[in-house]
């Protein structure tokens, strides 16, 4: 079992440091964001399990040959408070330390996930309340003329803000989710561009991107000093945007989408980059 623990430790290290670094620079992510997204999920899951598994397997090694057997043995000894038996089994302080580490790490990860979930849900509820009270539905603004072919665009809510903005707020059910557009964005976009940006936000909601970003946010909050959590969080945010772009492009022209997205990010510095590298910058 010690060799297995060593293997898991090496695996945890590989998944925590060099692999995320490589993947965050990999070019294929722009071509197939789905594949990159699956890979990140696999890395996070396997990395987390290996991280907990390595000390767990090492700590359990003196207690029995298999995982099941040794866990049962530890629980039996704990219940009987039979600490003299530890010496007969050749349990070293390092084994006890490793076991404690594994248990604490596992608890820490679960609690952070839970805390993030509660916090995100709370601030989202607050935000939805504010949107409901402060916004007007888009169709009300345009008059009832669009009623017969009401689309997702008509269900979008408009807030009075100068900054061009578009975002979505996931709700518990799909019906309680809202897409929010700012007055400033509405003033600058044509109907086709508006439809494209709403389709982009709808793709976020349909594909449940908020769950992915929340999980990776929790993963980062739990272990912020680990390269994998930092790269993973950034990459997943970026990939959800790419996936939403792809979703929107199934029904809308790329030009409409590009214009609307470029406008809806006020502080973007794409201009300078494109000027420096020329428009043929590899993507």
């Amino acid at each position: 079992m010690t060799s297995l623990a060593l293997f898991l430790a090496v695996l945890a290290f590989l998944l925590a440091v060099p692999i995320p670094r490589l993947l965050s620079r990999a070019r294929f992510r722009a071509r197939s964001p789905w594949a990159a997204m699956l890979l990140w999920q696999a890395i996070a899951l396997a990395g987390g399990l290996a991280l907990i598994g390595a000390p767990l397997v090492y700590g359990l090694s003196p207690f029995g040959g298999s995982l099941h057997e040794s866990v049962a043995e530890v629980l039996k000894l704990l219940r009987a408070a039979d600490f003299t038996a530890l010496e007969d089994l050749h349990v070293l302080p390092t084994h006890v330390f490793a076991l404690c580490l594994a248990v604490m790490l596992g608890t820490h990860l679960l609690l952070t996930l839970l805390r993030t979930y509660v916090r995100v849900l709370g601030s989202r509820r607050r935000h939805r309340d504010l949107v409901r009270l402060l916004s007007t539905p888009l169709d009300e603004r345009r008059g009832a003329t669009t009623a017969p072919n009401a689309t997702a665009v008509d269900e979008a809510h408009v807030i009075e803000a100068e900054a061009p903005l578009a975002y979505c707020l996931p709700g518990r059910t799909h019906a309680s989710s809202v897409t929010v557009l700012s007055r400033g964005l509405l003033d600058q976009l044509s109907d086709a561009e508006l439809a494209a940006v709403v389709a982009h936000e709808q793709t976020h909601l349909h594909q449940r991107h908020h769950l992915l970003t929340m999980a990776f946010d929790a993963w980062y909050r739990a272990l912020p000093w680990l390269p994998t959590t930092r790269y993973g969080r950034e990459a997943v945010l970026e990939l959800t945007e790419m996936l939403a772009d792809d979703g929107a492009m199934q029904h809308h022209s790329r030009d409409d989408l590009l214009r609307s997205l470029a406008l809806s990010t006020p502080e973007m510095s794409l201009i300078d980059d494109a000027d420096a590298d020329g428009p043929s910058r590899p993507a």
Partner: protein
Amino acid sequence: MATLGDLERSVMSLLWDSAESLSANDVRDRLDEDLAVTTVLTVLARLEKKNMVTRERSSRPHRYAAAASREEHTVEMLNEVLGTASDREAVLARFIGGISDSEATALRRILRSS
């Protein structure tokens, strides 16, 4: 029939526009719809629970006021959104390779003007 959400919106905009705090009776009198005071009180209680409305308990009847102005709430929302926004630049960059020179120029013009 107006839903509770619609009523919350009308009551809230009344309180935002009002310079002084209002009692439930004042609110009912100023609303277009013909409502029972108990309904207004229910709506006000819901808004208080959402921290949108503050209640002055020193007076009888209790008087209600908006906890913050429309603008303050809008700023609260925008800060939250901008704080969590991801880096669009990197995401949009993947399109750059695939667009023509004239499209790229047009895109840059849009970006510059915003």
